């Protein structure tokens, strides 16, 4: 019988484990310390636990850490790691070193259900939710783990569609008994699954990045099916209901598609939609994916768009492209690696 993973358990869950094994409650704090601060590679290394405690833990549990299977490195230093999950599925994480910060972009699901037109991960369909341990493993098993300064949940999957595990992973990263990171070093993205986004806003202190890509309902529906049920307008209205304080950041991600969402009408639409929100708009160059009907806007058009929005008082930046030579869209490595499930389709 497969052993259960300890990595990814919250302090409360570790307490339950200790209760079940008839171990003293304080053992849970010790185990959390070994897992999330000292980053041990095995239960046997937890040397302030009694031999009996280690033996009991070893009987039913394992750490559950898995090293990356491979990686690609860009000339700019960006590294894209491929991790295998339980069940021979693959996820990607991107390590983005910069002068003053080192960011890791993690996945929250294997595949994705959301079906956005411009997304490579969507082409895999949905395969499974990552557990909190599998989300955290991308940090814990990263060779550059100890150099990380920032974390973004912008890899494969829609974090709000796996909100329980995303919140658990955030609790572990930001708790004193866990990694002890400030939530201000973490940014979580969403396409706007409103109920889960509301939970995220209320139960976490991390920054929020909303993938917008169009201010217009009909057009956004063509790009992002979620718009049929949770419109950009609803997403923005929901955000307006909360006080984010001075430190917590809201940003809107806007991939620029040539001739589609990069016009003066879109400047007007965005200005109207985001009126009254203290936020930043990140303009993103589109990296074309195979057989896509969309093309990226030219650099000059992106600069014009940025200047127009800035002139309207919206804090707008063009996100620096990283790892272009290995980029080929998030999801490509794992899509290539995807092992067909052989599941019978009904269409």
């Amino acid at each position, binding site marked *: 019988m497969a052993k259960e993973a300890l990595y990814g358990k919250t302090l409360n869950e570790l307490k339950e484990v200790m209760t079940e094994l008839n171990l003293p409650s304080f053992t849970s704090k010790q185990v959390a310390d070994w897992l999330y601060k000292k980053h041990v590679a095995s239960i046997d290394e937890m040397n302030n636990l009694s031999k009996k405690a280690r033996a009991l833990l070893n009987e039913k549990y394992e750490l559950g850490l898995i090293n990356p299977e491979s990686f690609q490195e860009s000339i700019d230093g960006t590294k894209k790691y491929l991790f295998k999950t339980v069940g021979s599925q693959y996820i990607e994480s991107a390590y983005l070193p910069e002068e003053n910060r080192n960011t890791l972009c993690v996945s929250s699901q294997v595949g994705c259900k959301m079906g956005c037109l411009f997304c490579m991960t969507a082409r895999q369909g949905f395969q499974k939710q990552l557990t909190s341990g599998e989300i955290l493993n991308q940090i814990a098993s990263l060779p550059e783990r100890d150099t990380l300064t920032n974390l973004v949940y912008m890899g494969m999957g829609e974090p709000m569609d796996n909100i329980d595990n995303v919140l658990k992973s955030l609790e572990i990263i930001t708790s004193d008994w866990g990694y002890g990171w400030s939530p201000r070093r973490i940014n979580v993205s969403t396409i706007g699954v409103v109920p889960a986004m509301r939970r995220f*806003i*209320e139960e976490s202190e991390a920054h929020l990045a909303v993938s917008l890509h169009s201010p217009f309902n009909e057009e956004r*529906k*063509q790009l992002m099916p979620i718009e049929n*049920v949770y419109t950009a307008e609803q997403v923005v209205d929901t955000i307006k*209901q909360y*006080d984010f304080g001075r430190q917590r950041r809201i940003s809107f991600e806007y991939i620029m598609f040539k001739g589609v969402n990069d016009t003066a009408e879109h400047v007007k639409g965005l200005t109207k939609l985001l009126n009254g929100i203290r936020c930043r708009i990140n303009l993103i160059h589109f990296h074309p994916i195979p*057989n896509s009907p969309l093309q990226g806007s030219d650099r000059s058009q992106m600069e014009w768009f940025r200047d127009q929005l800035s002139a309207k008082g919206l804090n707008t930046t063009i996100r620096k492209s990283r790892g272009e030579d290995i980029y080929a869209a998030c999801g490509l490595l794992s899509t290539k690696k995807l092992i067909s499930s052989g599941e019978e389709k009904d*269409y």
Partner: protein
Amino acid sequence: MINRKRKELYPVTVIENNLIKEDVHYLKLDKKFSFKPGQVLAIALKQNDEPRLYSIASGIDKDYLGILFDVNPDGQLTPTMSQLKSGDQLYISEPFGKFLCEGTPAMWIATGTGIAPFVSLAESNKANNITLIHGARTIDAFYLQDTFIKILGENYNRFCTSEQQEGIYHGRLTTYLQQQKQLPTDYKYYLCGNSQMIIDVREILIEKGVPFDHIIAEIYF
């Protein structure tokens, strides 16, 4: 100061719970709200539960709200929903959503319970100039097909992957679409079902020259 404003849920009475295939139900709820065909309801067992979204599967003039659902044995909602009896109560939001499929001529494409919004549209007299492509694994999985046979006649095309019957294409709807030399590029295409079907069909349509802005999809997640 946090000001929590979630979607309000209202009690509604179950009129009927019909088992239409193993683990697939059609629930008739008291018509508490009017709606636009293609809209969804958020449904929960209790007022403070986190609701799930379901397309309304009945016409605007019916005296009930129809909900088509399959039972997810690991789910928190549908196993209990499948046991509901006439007179029982559950909680629904006001109808909302923008999958209104107003463009014509159009092709509607659905699999599984993704047929639900098209039932509502067809029963609401919104099926002029429509061709429906309906995929299922077995013959008994063409849920609510009588509605379409009656309203769409020859424009209702069924594709069954594992069983054969006269009048029903044997094979995948994706294979059929792929085999078409041409697909009308001036049509609107409305897709509803699981994400993998949506992705596969959308890729075929785009490959056949259908502009991406003629393709609107609603994904069940």
